[in-house]
């Protein structure tokens, strides 16, 4: 077993930004472990632009953002074990990983878990019918096209209005395929407004809200789908079925953190986000294990994931030097209009920031962080949308009453 300083799991925009920050803070022993042979994470396949406005002050593509982070990491001589997959973490912070040279065991003073998230797939939405080829998640279709130069099909239907699906609708159209329509179960789109306009409206691709795929047709290869309108309880309405021929069905039904490795370490998981429950230092319920980026909760922007990574790095550095303030335990509970918050607990005595998602689209709302009758922080938003993560700064909590976050 090897003894190391701070180990970062995952070399996406979160992991790389965390490692860079740790080095800049003066941490001497920083190790990054990455499953793929290259760093960059999901950014490597996101070739459209719209990344980097916050961190680099310009709008660039995913691969460019990854390359800039990589060169920052190289300048700081950060050690990165690529092609190495973390299999297990124990409560005492021993990491077991499969590397090209065999299984390695590493004990860390602190761990930052930044292994990203996965896509919800057909299994998690349960469409009845055959299981023919030609059904892909949007991210898989994106990897096919952007990394391996393979066209998923010629005539596609997209289920779900997540950003990856919208971006793929445009990419397929530009490459000469036909995209008949995008269907969204909810009554509001899931992706960013900008992507609806620039990926669908620009190419006259219709978006049907409150619709879902109720059956998949075809034996070896998909031949078409049946689509139905749904009612207020998201149940298909009989008599509204319509058949759409297609050779490809792309699922863009959401991203979800995959926290099996943290769960096995005994980390408490939030059932709403499927990420770890963390305190305001982004530390999980297991001391010395931190989490950030898409592994903690799904981020819309790589820049925000990188910024969160820096906060985790600062706190992991404090923890490793025995200086992290974790004297107490208050809960942060999502109240009226709020679907989830990060952090879920407060353990220190200083000011903190709450990131959250709201339940529904509303105009002219104030998000308040309250404790008992006292307002610890608030922020006014001209517009709040569930698809956009927002944040509010709060002053230190006092006493031992729980903290509540509400939209009003």
């Amino acid at each position, binding site marked *: 077993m090897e003894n190391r300083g701070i180990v970062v799991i995952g070399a996406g925009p979160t992991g790389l930004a965390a490692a860079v920050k740790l080095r800049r803070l003066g941490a001497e022993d920083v190790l990054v472990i990455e499953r793929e042979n290259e760093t960059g994470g999901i950014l490597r396949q996101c*070739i459209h632009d719209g990344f980097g406005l916050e961190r680099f002050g310009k709008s*660039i*593509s995913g*691969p460019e953002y990854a390359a800039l982070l990589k060169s920052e990491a190289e300048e700081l001589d950060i050690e990165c074990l690529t092609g190495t997959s973390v299999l297990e973490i124990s409560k005492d912070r021993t990491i077991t990983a499969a590397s090209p040279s065999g299984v390695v065991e590493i004990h860390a003073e602190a761990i930052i878990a930044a292994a990203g998230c996965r896509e919800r797939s057909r299994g998690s939405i349960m469409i009845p019918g055959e299981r023919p080829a030609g059904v892909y998640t949007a991210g898989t279709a994106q990897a096919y096209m*952007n990394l391996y*130069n393979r066209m998923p099909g010629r005539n596609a239907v997209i289920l779900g209005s997540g950003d990856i699906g919208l971006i793929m609708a*445009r990419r397929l159209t530009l*490459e000469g395929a036909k995209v008949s329509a995008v269907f969204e179960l909810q009554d509001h789109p899931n992706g960013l407004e900008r992507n609806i306009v620039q990926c669908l409206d620009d190419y006259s691709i219709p978006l049907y809200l409150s619709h879902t795929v109720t059956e998949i047709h075809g034996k070896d290869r998909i031949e078409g789908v049946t689509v139905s309108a749904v009612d207020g309880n998201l149940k298909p309405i009989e008599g509204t079925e319509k058949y759409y021929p297609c050779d490809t069905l792309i699922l863009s039904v959401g991203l979800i953190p995959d926290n099996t490795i943290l769960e096995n370490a005994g980390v408490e998981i939030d059932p709403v986000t499927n990420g770890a429950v963390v305190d305001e230092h982004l530390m999980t319920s297991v001391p010395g294990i931190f989490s950030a980026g898409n592994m903690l909760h799904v981020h819309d922007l790589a820049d925000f994931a990188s910024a969160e990574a820096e906060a985790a790095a600062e706190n992991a550095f404090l923890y490793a030097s025995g200086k992290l303030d974790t004297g107490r335990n208050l809960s942060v509970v999502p109240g009226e209009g709020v679907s989830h918050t990060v952090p879920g607990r407060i353990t220190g005595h200083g000011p903190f920031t709450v990131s959250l998602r709201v339940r529904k689209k509303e105009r002219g709302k104030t998000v308040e962080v309250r404790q008992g009758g006292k307002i610890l922080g608030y922020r006014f938003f001209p517009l709040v949308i569930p698809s956009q993560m927002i944040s509010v700064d709060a002053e230190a909590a006092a006493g031992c009453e729980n903290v509540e976050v509400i939209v009003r």
Partner: protein
Amino acid sequence: MKKIYTCIICPRSCELEADILPDGQVSVSGNGCPRGAEWIRNELSDPKRTIASSVLVEGGEKEIVSVRLSSPVPLRMIFPIMDEIRKVSVTAPVSIGDIIIRDVLSSGADVIATSSVLAKKE
């Protein structure tokens, strides 16, 4: 014809209602400031966009290299530009930022590489 847009210029995110009159004029309401009206008029008359795609690489460690436009071009030029992108191929090595097509179709934008591809080792 009336259409609703959410202004993307500043965080106030005003809901703009654009009314396209029969003579082609656009009347805008709901905008909190003149910038919103100007944005929506451009958006309706000549919207500008950037796109990303990929280009074939010969002799490289990878088959393709990702590319994008260096600056936005009128939306109507996107498909003609895609045709140009499809026509070219490059020889490895390719470095991030390399210009693949300069001033494509005189649009003022270059097609640039957004990743690097090393030459294949013999």
